[in-house]
Each structure stands twice: as structure tokens, then as C-alpha cells.
């Protein structure tokens, strides 16, 4: 474990190697700072790695490239820089003293950077419906990983749920990969998935469609979980449908030295993610190129459509598990709300919803809407769920190793 506990005053750590994280690390490194880039995946690119679609509004160097090609470009870019890139490495906690809990191939260790740039991306929106926990039902990212990284179709007769860009692209992806049938469903409301060991059909208004896979392609939410560990101030974002960290023009949060870039701060285009990365990378190194980077970011137009919920909370059947891991039903959550729970934290304490390994990321979106519909409290007035470490699965053995290292 020698040499892994950094305390250099100028050390920059970037968490996440998607478009914005790579841009931030590259910008900081070219400005002369020592940069460590932590990536939970095996190779740079984030979600772009498993995307075959053309990047829209791409910055010049990514013009006309498909997602996976942009990811390859990120690999080349990092290789040509002084960035200390660490694949397969998870940052599971950001603590009050600014230290990061990290687990990588070499084991568990702590980093104590002077500046931290969080480029942790987004998490997929999911929505419960009858039978949704059956094997064969998966999210768009899981389906894309199977198809585009591992050359396996999720099924031959596939239902796609969703009506936005994500679902449209999934239908294209499935047909390109050779699926026999693609059936579209605009919303999870009223759907019933049937099957024993795995899904075999999906029923809507009494019509049964035989399928061997169902893909939830409902879009994504910003995932600033590590920023939330650090208790950065949040605001409700109408276009994202959830709370996001408040940031200044340098992409810094309310916590000194903690920056957020890319989707983690609010859903972005690739061009915007890259531009934000450059701003933060130059800001942490006080580069003379900062003003120009801010100008580039300002020139990028933002979509500001208000986020619409992907499903109707009151339509979720009582006996459906809203929290898949803790197996908490919609009825249990409704009862908790009826008896006075008016925040996601309250519901969590009463029902265990959100206490599973995935730490409530999936369920917070749904439970917030259940509370809002049932009580009339608007989403922006709901207290966001408290995020606590670990942000990822961490073995007790790894934590024990860390405890020894800290002593």
C-alpha cells in the first residue's frame, strides 16, 4: 500500500472518466498539476463506451464520431498526457476533511487531494410496475453493455418502455443488433410483466405480447452522490426533476475545493460536459486559459424543458416492490406517507426503502413522486434524501485493510 496516501498540496483528483472527467483531468494535467483520474470502469469514456449513436453537437475533436469512437479517443488523449489514470477503481466516499475513500485493484486506500473534481455522471431512471423484478427485465444501459461491449442480445422479442430519446435510440440499437421484434410501450403505467423464472409476456389493457426481454429506457438523472456526501448545497432542477449541487462559474460547489462537472451537476450534452470539464480543469490549476474555457461553455445552448415524471405514482399497484433490494411494497410506502412521512428520509426510516446496497439512488426518484402526489407537496419543496457512504459496493475486507493503513 506504500505511496498511496497522497498529501501533496497541489494534488488534483478527478472521479469518473466519462467525457467531462477526461476533459477535466486533461486540462488540469496540461496546466502542470499532478492529476489522478479514478475510473470504476476498465477503460475511459463512461457511457460513451457502450454507445453506437452519433454524438450530436460535438466539440470539434469529436465531430462525426460515434460514442465508442469518442471513448477510444479519450483513451488516446489520456495516454498522451501525464494523468495518472486508475481503471477499475471506485471512490466510495467523500468525507468532511476532503479525503476520498478508494478501492482499486491494489486494494483500499485514501486520497487527500487539494482539489477534487467529481465527474460521476448519471444514474438511470427506473419505475415500478407489476412483475418488474422478473429476470429478463433490465435497464437500457445493461442492454447496451450486453449488446455493444459483449455482443449478446438481451432477447429476440423485446419490449422497450419509454418515449424519449433513450427509448428511441434503444429501438434503433436493438434492430441494428439483430433483434427479431421490438415492441414499444410509452409508459410503465398499467403494464404487467408475466413469467416464472424469467419474463415471457407483457400485458397492456388486456393485450398480451410475448417477449423474452423488457428494456426500461426512461432516461437518466444526475448522480452527484459523492458531492452529497460532502454536504454541498443543493437546488431543485426543474429540467432534471431532482436536486443538483449549486455551482459557481468555475463549477465549484458550496464546499471549497469540491467541483462537479458533466451529468452529475445536471444532465448535459457531450459538448457541454466536455466544456465544463475544461472549465474545472483550468480553474483548479488557475490556468490563464480559464476565461476562454468559460466563454466556450457559455456559448453552448442548454435545453431547458421541464422534466416530466416517467410514470404516475398513484398507478403503481399496492403489492409491487418499489425498492427491489429491500423488497418494500408501494402499500408500505403509502402507509408511511399516510401516517406522517413527508420526506424520502422519513419513508426510508419507516420502511427501509432506500437502505439497500444501491443506497436509494433508484428509489428516491419514485418515492419523492409518491410523496408529492399523495400529500400535494411539490417536488422542489421535498427535502432530498441524505446520501451516506459507501457510494458503491465495498467489501468488509477492503475496509479492514483501510483501517490498518490509517492506523
Amino acid at each position, binding site marked *: 500500500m506504500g505511496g498511496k496516501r497522497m498529501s501533496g498540496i497541489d494534488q488534483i483528483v478527478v472521479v469518473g472518466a466519462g467525457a467531462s472527467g477526461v476533459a477535466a483531468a486533461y486540462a488540469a494535467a496540461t496546466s502542470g498539476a499532478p492529476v489522478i483520474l479514478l475510473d470504476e470502469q476498465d477503460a475511459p469514456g463512461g457511457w460513451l463506451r457502450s454507445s*453506437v449513436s452519433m454524438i450530436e453537437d460535438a466539440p470539434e475533436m469529436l465531430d462525426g464520431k460515434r460514442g465508442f469512437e469518442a471513448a477510444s479517443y479519450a483513451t488516446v488523449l489520456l495516454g498522451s498526457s501525464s494523468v495518472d489514470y486508475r481503471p477499475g477503481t471506485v471512490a466510495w466516499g467523500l468525507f468532511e476533511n476532503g479525503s476520498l475513500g478508494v478501492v482499486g485493484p491494489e486494494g483500499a486506500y485514501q486520497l487527500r487531494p487539494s482539489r477534487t473534481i467529481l465527474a460521476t455522471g448519471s444514474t438511470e431512471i427506473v419505475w415500478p410496475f407489476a412483475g418488474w*423484478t*422478473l*429476470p429478463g427485465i433490465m*435497464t437500457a444501459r445493461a442492454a447496451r453493455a450486453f449488446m455493444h461491449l459483449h*455482443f449478446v442480445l438481451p432477447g429476440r422479442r423485446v419490449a422497450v418502455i419509454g418515449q424519449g430519446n433513450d427509448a428511441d435510440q434503444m429501438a434503433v440499437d436493438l434492430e441494428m443488433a439483430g433483434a427479431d421484434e421490438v415492441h414499444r410501450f410509452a409508459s410503465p403505467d398499467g403494464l404487467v410483466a408475466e413469467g416464472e423464472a424469467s419474463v415471457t409476456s407483457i400485458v397492456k389493457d388486456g393485450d398480451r405480447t410475448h417477449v423474452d426481454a423488457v428494456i426500461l429506457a426512461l432516461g437518466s438523472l444526475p448522480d452527484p452522490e459523492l458531492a452529497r456526501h460532502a454536504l454541498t448545497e443543493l437546488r431543485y432542477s426543474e429540467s432534471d426533476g431532482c436536486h443538483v449541487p449549486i455551482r459557481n462559474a468555475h463549477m465549484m460547489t458550496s464546499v471549497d475545493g469540491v467541483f462537479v462537472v458533466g451529468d452529475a451537476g445536471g444532465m448535459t450534452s457531450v459538448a457541454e460536459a466536455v466544456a465544463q470539464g475544461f472549465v474545472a480543469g483550468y480553474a483548479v490549476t488557475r490556468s490563464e486559459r480559464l476565461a476562454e474555457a468559460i466563454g466556450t461553455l457559455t456559448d453552448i445552448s442548454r435545453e431547458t424543458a421541464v422534466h416530466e415524471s416517467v410514470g404516475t405514482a398513484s398507478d403503481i399497484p399496492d403489492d409491487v416492490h418499489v425498492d427491489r*433490494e429491500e423488497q418494500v411494497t408501494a402499500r408500505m410506502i403509502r402507509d408511511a406517507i399516510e401516517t406522517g412521512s413527508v420526506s424520502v428520509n422519513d419513508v426510508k426510516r419507516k420502511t427501509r426503502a432506500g437502505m439497500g*446496497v444501491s443506497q436509494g439512488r433508484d428509489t428516491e426518484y419514485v418515492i419523492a413522486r409518491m410523496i408529492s402526489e399523495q400529500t400535494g407537496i411539490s417536488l422542489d419543496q421535498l427535502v432530498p434524501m441524505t446520501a451516506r457512504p459507501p457510494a458503491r*459496493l465495498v467489501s468488509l475486507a477492503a475496509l479492514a485493510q483501510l483501517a490498518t493503513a490509517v492506523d
Partner: protein
Amino acid sequence: MSTTLRIESHPVLGSNELRTTVTITADGREIQALVGEPIAAALLASGILKIRTMPGTAAPRGIFTGVGRSIEELGTVNGESNVPLMSTPVEDGMVIEVQQGLGGWVENA
């Protein structure tokens, strides 16, 4: 129905670089898998979707988000419980079982 869900050739991506085929045992039957691919991909290619049951309810579960954050992708491999099947590569002769609930303990030799 076709016996495999493998994509032989993708119009944009071409074909899989992994070539070496081995035999693994999954849920009591022998299936073909590619060395280096995630166990979950090998299972899916052979139409095996159920990788575990849930504690308490015994409800079947398979890969859902596939990003290593959920207990739903943990299975039993060579007798060891709670192995992440989306990030653990296939090796020759592996024995994959449907994990029952929280799984069992393996005594260290």
C-alpha cells in the same frame, strides 16, 4: 427460437474479439462461453436469465442495471456466494449456480 443470443456480426461494431470457447456449467447444464467475457453475458447468450433468488421471498432475479451497484447481479460461482456476475470474467470449467437468498459460507482452507 434461435439457440443463442450472440451477435455474430454488428453493422457498426463488427464482431467480438473474444474467440476462445470453453465449457462452463450453469444451473446444472453445460454451456459454451468465451474466455474473458463477463459470466452474466455467457449466461444470457445461452438464455439463462435467473441468477439468484431474494432472501425471504425467494423471488427470482437477473441482471437489472448491470453497473455493479446492486445485489441483483450477485451469483454463486464455484461455491462462492455474492460474486458480481457482470464484472467477473469467464474461466474454463466454472460452475455457476443460482444463488439462493444471501448464499452460503465457504470455509477457508
